């Protein structure tokens, strides 16, 4: 088949699957939360309430897209688009299977880091453009939180880069043929997991939108499809981090018996469920606790991880 055509098909396929999955996650999350909290959750529309998402989507499309008069209009409009764009762009470098990958670049991980750091703008600018003190506070929290956690996120990933000897995600997956990196890089895995949760602003790190303190944080003023984009962006982020976790530390598509695509989906789903469980189980910390936790524990630990990994890799190479 024509390789260009194949690329386009893959691209469209990933886009559709990921977007569908993201919206499906809303249903999944509500059902799982309900399960863990001993209640039903959405169960009226369609089988098991599956069509609830569709209904919500229709509703959100037809809502009035209201822009507050005091907002900074261009930035206000721009903000929600950024997050969706950056997250979707990151999916381009992820190797789902040996075949299903859009671009295999040798700076894939750096690309992910760059995109995730650009994603901060979405939240920050959204909070600023709303011109509302709760939104602004949420935006500031998001800025400092993501800036802080991104530092050791990058550092924690470098352990796998050292072991694989490449920034390319494909070679990282292939390097895990014999052993998943979660074994030699357990500390790195834990750090990356925590940083990933913080990057997606999921509980317990959802301080930028802490309802009890800041109404809805940076997206208080948003409504309609713009709100929807923030919403979907968050779930896309969850999927992204889950996929990355399985790619970086759990061997990606590799696994016995089943075809690669099934393996990666299974692993990803596992982490998604873990994310939801976290939301059901964890309380929310205070903001200063969050910051000092990040700088005083996570950063030194990730540096330690980096140094030890480097030393071991050097020693083994000798």
């Amino acid at each position, binding site marked *: 088949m024509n390789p260009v055509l194949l690329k386009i098909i893959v691209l469209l396929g990933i886009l559709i699957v990921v977007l569908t999955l993201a919206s499906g996650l809303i249903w999944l999350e509500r059902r799982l939360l309900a399960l863990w909290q001993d209640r039903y959750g959405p169960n009226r529309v369609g089988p098991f309430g599956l069509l609830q998402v569709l209904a919500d989507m229709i509703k959100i499309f037809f809502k009035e897209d209201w822009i507050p*008069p*005091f907002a*900074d*209009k*261009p*930035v206000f409009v*721009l903000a929600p688009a950024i997050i969706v764009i950056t997250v979707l762009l990151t999916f381009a470098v992820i190797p789902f299977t040996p075949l299903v990958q859009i671009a295999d*670049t*040798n*700076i894939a991980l*750096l*690309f992910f*880091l*760059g*995109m*995730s*750091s*650009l994603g*901060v*703008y979405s939240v*920050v*600018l959204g*909070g*600023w453009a709303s*011109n*509302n*003190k709760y939104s*602004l*506070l949420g*935006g*500031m929290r998001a*800025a*400092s939180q*993501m*800036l802080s956690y*991104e530092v050791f996120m*990058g550092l924690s990933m470098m352990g796998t880069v050292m072991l694989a000897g490449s*920034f390319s995600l494909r070679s990282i997956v292939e390097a895990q043929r014999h052993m998943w990196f979660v074994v030699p890089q357990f500390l790195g895995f834990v750090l990356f997991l925590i940083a990933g949760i913080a990057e997606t602003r999921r509980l317990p790190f959802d301080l930028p939108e802490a309802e009890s303190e800041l109404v809805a944080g940076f997206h208080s003023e948003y409504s309609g499809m713009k709100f929807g984009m923030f919403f979907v962006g968050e779930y896309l982020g969850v999927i992204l981090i889950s996929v990355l976790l399985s790619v970086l530390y759990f061997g990606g598509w590799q696994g016995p018996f089943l075809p690669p695509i099934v393996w990666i989906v299974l692993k990803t789903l596992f982490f998604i469920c873990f994310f939801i469980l976290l939301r059901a189980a964890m309380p929310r910390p205070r903001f200063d606790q969050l910051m000092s936790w990040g700088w005083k524990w996570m950063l030194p630990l990730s540096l330690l991880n980096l140094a030890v990994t480097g030393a071991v890799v050097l020693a083994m190479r000798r």
Partner: protein
Amino acid sequence: MEAIFYIAAIVAVLATVLTVTRLNPVHALLYLTVSLLAVAVVFYTLGAPFMAALEVVIYAGAIMVLFVFVVMLLNLGRHTVEIERSWLSPGAFVGPAILAAILVGEVSYLLARSGTLTPPVAEVSPHQVALSLYGPYLLGVELASFLLLGALVGAYHVGSRRAQGRTTVGSRSDRTGLASGGDLVRTGADRPSGAA
């Protein structure tokens, strides 16, 4: 590739022009970010993918966010735009523009005199960069780490709250149109006046 290079370069220059001329700090910052991203693309086309990634991660992702953060901390809103407008008259551009033009002219003269300007672009891999960074430039790396440490300590000290509040010399609030410090709470106060 060549087309992408020229497009990105033009975008970079335009965005920079807009950065310099914007009144609203956040808008200027956004244009600056766009300019940086365009420069990152330029880097990529020049065969420096690693630098492109770093440009995005550190410049656009960290340094600019720091700027935005500070802007938000100071809550520079609509009133700053007014002040900027009063400060930024077209006449102010004349002198610097002349100076800059002279400089550009000189540099391009020098470049033109020194020979060809058609670069045979050669890719330089991150591997090579790392090798020379930790080889001949090791001392530089150490110095850079010193610099960063110094900056860290300096920024912490300068920004620390303890040194604050000794004296507040000459409140220029009348001139800037600010009644009191840039507290966050003030955001709501000027909301109606800024209604579009």
